């Protein structure tokens, strides 16, 4: 409605042509100038003419007085003066009268001979002209201008008077003629000026119409037709500016359209990407997987999925494509399709990653690569087997023990190096997921999120701290805690990278550990009351410490350590048997507690028998793997030949045989602790020493 009113008002408003306005204005100025100049010129001309006429009249009178002096001395002055005056009157008809008077005032020279000798009577109404240059010689009346000059002898004697009268009408005629000529010239100038101004304005303002048409075209949306106005005035510059402005608007319009198109495509790509990822919890037996995806300000290259696999297993996959925007999204979509097509064919995550690397090799643009991690959960056995292609470490939180295990990737990214080399870098790793344990898969958008202000990264330590406190919270709250922590860390800054998280585990709170405590012999309760790492540190103060790594060859390392200790309370045989018992226990921990995890570590403390410690003569072993107490497996019945043929389970039996007392406990926030009192001079069942 308002728009219509505006349009209506626009139509009603009268428009005046700029050229007409300018032409009229210039014409008016010309008229005023001509009239003004004409008036002044006329006045000036009139005055000049008057002065000229008066001067000439006076000069004429003087001249006549000069030539009349001798004549008046003659006996008959009229004989020379009369013809002379008649001649003057004939030559100058504008003169009203010319008279030469003698000293008595009688006429001696006149055009009319009948006036001779008469007394000259001056015309009435003559008055002197005030301020005239000829003051005293010149008098005027409404009809006449009269110059009177005395005729003097050479000796100064006054002989008579000459009077010359000029009709004022003559002067008026001359002034009138001059005025007419001036008016004629002014009129011509006026006409020329008006038409000239009109023509000049028309020529000068012609670009305005071009500008008007050009701007109207721009207003109608035509930004491509330039005005191309060849004009060197400011209007030409204005037209160029408008052309440039139109070109810029056109360029901006093109960019804006392109951006709108890209935004639309980005929105579409984002929708596709989000649709690839599950938006609900995927349950499998007593386990479940749940993920979270929060997109960055642009479409990113993160992707995760959780799906059921044949054999009632659960598959979890996560990938981060290096490169954002549509390119990254396309690779993500391709990857999702490949995983979907291949996941049922492989029981080994490493084999699936190998297959994906083969698929992607040669298909990615230079500089584009993919990090990925794939895991298969066997819910019946609580085993999560996974392989990683240079992806962020898998973090396994065991809230019951207050520990978070880190499993770093040893594989290379997918699709970036020759397939044969890449394939050999992917290996399966298996971890056990107990009640409350949570495995976190994530992308670097979590740990590398920069803090608002100083840019400090969120870091893995903060993630681990949140996971450590996650006991019994369930998947959703843990994901929300992580997301809230990162969002708070980043403040108001927009996300620079996707935030992608995937939790796998068996929800539930663990307030009491499984009953794994074992006490054999008369061990009693030496370590069962330990509540924290600090209390363990206090208990092990003064003891000799050794940390054994799964990669360092456990039993040999223990043997060397024990020989170096050389505890006098144990003979060489007893030391050898203790070394064997410890080796068996630690091997069991690495094999069954840590499931062969390469970075696994075990702590040993030796309390010398000579010390006054309550554990003097004991060895204590601590690990953070799955609980595996030495008495949890039955002693093999070696009477059975089939059992002997299997040759398994002897390690547990060895430990029990070679230890006098043993206390094994799984402790919250500490891990599995096994205190061993070695048997001294242990003998065969027949109580007979075998060797001396």
């Amino acid at each position: 409605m308002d728009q219509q009113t505006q349009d209506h008002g626009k139509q009603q408003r009268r428009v005046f042509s700029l050229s007409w306005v300018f032409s009229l204005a210039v014409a008016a100025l010309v008229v005023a100038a001509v009239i003004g100049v004409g008036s002044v010129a006329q006045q000036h001309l009139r005055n000049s003419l008057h002065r000229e006429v008066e001067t000439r009249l006076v000069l004429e009178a003087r001249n006549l007085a000069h030539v009349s002096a001798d004549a008046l001395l003659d006996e008959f002055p009229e004989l020379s003066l009369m013809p002379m005056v008649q001649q003057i009157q004939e030559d100058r008809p504008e003169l009203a009268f010319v008279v030469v008077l003698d000293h008595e005032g009688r006429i001696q020279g006149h055009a009319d001979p009948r006036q001779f000798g008469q007394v000259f009577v001056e015309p009435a109404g003559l008055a002197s002209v005030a301020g005239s240059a000829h003051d005293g010689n010149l008098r005027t009346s409404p009809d006449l201008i009269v110059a009177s000059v005395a005729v003097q002898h050479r000796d100064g004697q006054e002989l008579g008077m000459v009077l010359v009268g000029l009709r004022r009408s003559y002067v008026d005629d001359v002034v009138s003629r001059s005025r007419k000529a001036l008016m004629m010239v002014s009129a011509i100038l006026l006409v020329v000026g008006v038409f000239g101004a009109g023509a000049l304005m028309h020529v000068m303002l012609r670009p305005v119409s071009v500008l008007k048409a050009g701007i109207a075209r721009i207003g109608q949306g035509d930004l491509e037709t330039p005005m191309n106005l060849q004009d060197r005035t400011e209007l030409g510059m204005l037209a160029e500016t408008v052309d440039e402005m139109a070109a810029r608007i056109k360029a901006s319009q093109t960019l804006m359209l392109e951006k709108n198109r890209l935004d639309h495509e980005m929105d579409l790509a984002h929708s596709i990407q989000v649709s690839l990822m599950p938006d609900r919890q995927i349950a499998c037996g007593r386990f479940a997987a749940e993920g979270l995806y929060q997109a960055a300000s642009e479409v990113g290259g993160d992707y995760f999925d959780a799906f059921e696999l044949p054999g009632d297993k659960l598959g979890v996959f996560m990938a981060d494509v290096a490169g954002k925007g549509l390119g990254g999204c396309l690779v993500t979509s391709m990857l999702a399709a490949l995983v979907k097509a291949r996941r049922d064919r492989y029981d080994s995550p490493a084999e699936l990653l190998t297959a994906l690397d083969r698929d992607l090799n040669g298909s990615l643009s230079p500089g584009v690569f993919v990090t990925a991690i794939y895991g298969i959960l066997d819910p019946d056995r609580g085993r999560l087997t996974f392989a990683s292609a240079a992806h962020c470490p898998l973090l396994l939180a065991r809230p019951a023990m207050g520990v978070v295990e880190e499993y770093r990737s040893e594989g290379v990214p997918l699709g970036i190096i020759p397939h044969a080399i890449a394939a050999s870098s992917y290996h399966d790793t298996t971890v056990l997921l107990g009640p409350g344990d949570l495995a976190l898969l994530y992308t670097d958008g979590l740990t590398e999120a920069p803090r608002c202000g100083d840019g400090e990264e969120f870091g893995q330590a903060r993630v681990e701290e949140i996971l450590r406190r996650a006991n019994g919270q369930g998947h959703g709250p843990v994901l929300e805690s992580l997301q809230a922590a990162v969002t708070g860390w980043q403040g108001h800054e927009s996300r620079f990278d996707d935030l992608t998280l995937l939790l796998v585990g068996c929800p539930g709170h663990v307030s009491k550990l499984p009953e794994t405590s074992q006490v054999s012999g008369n061990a009693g309760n030496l370590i069962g009351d330990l509540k924290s790492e600090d209390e363990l540190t206090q208990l092990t103060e003064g003891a000799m410490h050794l940390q054994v790594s799964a990669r360092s060859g456990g039993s040999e390392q223990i043997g060397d350590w024990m020989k170096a200790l050389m505890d006098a309370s144990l003979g060489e045989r007893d030391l050898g048997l203790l070394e064997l018992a410890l080796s068996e226990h630690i091997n069991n921990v690495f094999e069954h507690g840590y499931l062969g995890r390469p970075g696994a570590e075990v702590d040993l403390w030796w309390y010398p028998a000579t010390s006054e410690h309550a554990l003097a003569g004991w060895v204590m072993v601590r690990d953070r793997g799955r609980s595996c107490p030495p008495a949890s497996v039955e002693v093999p019945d070696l009477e059975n030949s089939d059992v002997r043929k299997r040759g398994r389970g002897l390690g547990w039996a060895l430990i029990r045989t070679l230890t006098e007392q043993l206390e094994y406990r799984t402790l919250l926030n500490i891990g599995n602790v096994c205190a061993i009192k070695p048997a001294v001079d242990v003998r065969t069942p027949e109580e007979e020493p075998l060797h001396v």
Partner: protein
Amino acid sequence: MSETFFITDGAQDGFTVLSLTGRLGADAATDLRETCMDRIEAGERTLVLDLRAVPFVASSGLGTFLYVNEMMKELGGRMVLAGVQPLVQDVLSLMNIDRFLNIVEDVDQVRRELTPAT
């Protein structure tokens, strides 16, 4: 100090002696089992394991002894342990498995038993 385990395969008159050197842990036990199976599959029915240079045998090594011994018995052959070191002998006795194994003082004793009396 890291010790390396290796096996020297030596054929004698009518039997094979596998001379073992080093600590018989989990990895070494696997190697020993494979070597023994290779000899059994090759037709050997008397296998002597010379343990003079083996100071340490873990449970996996004990399991290998029992496994190879049972295999040989089923095939009508026998496995003999020779030169068993005191600590290893203690372990065999403490576990009460020496009663299932043929243990002799040294390899020569096997050779003497297999050589017909003249």
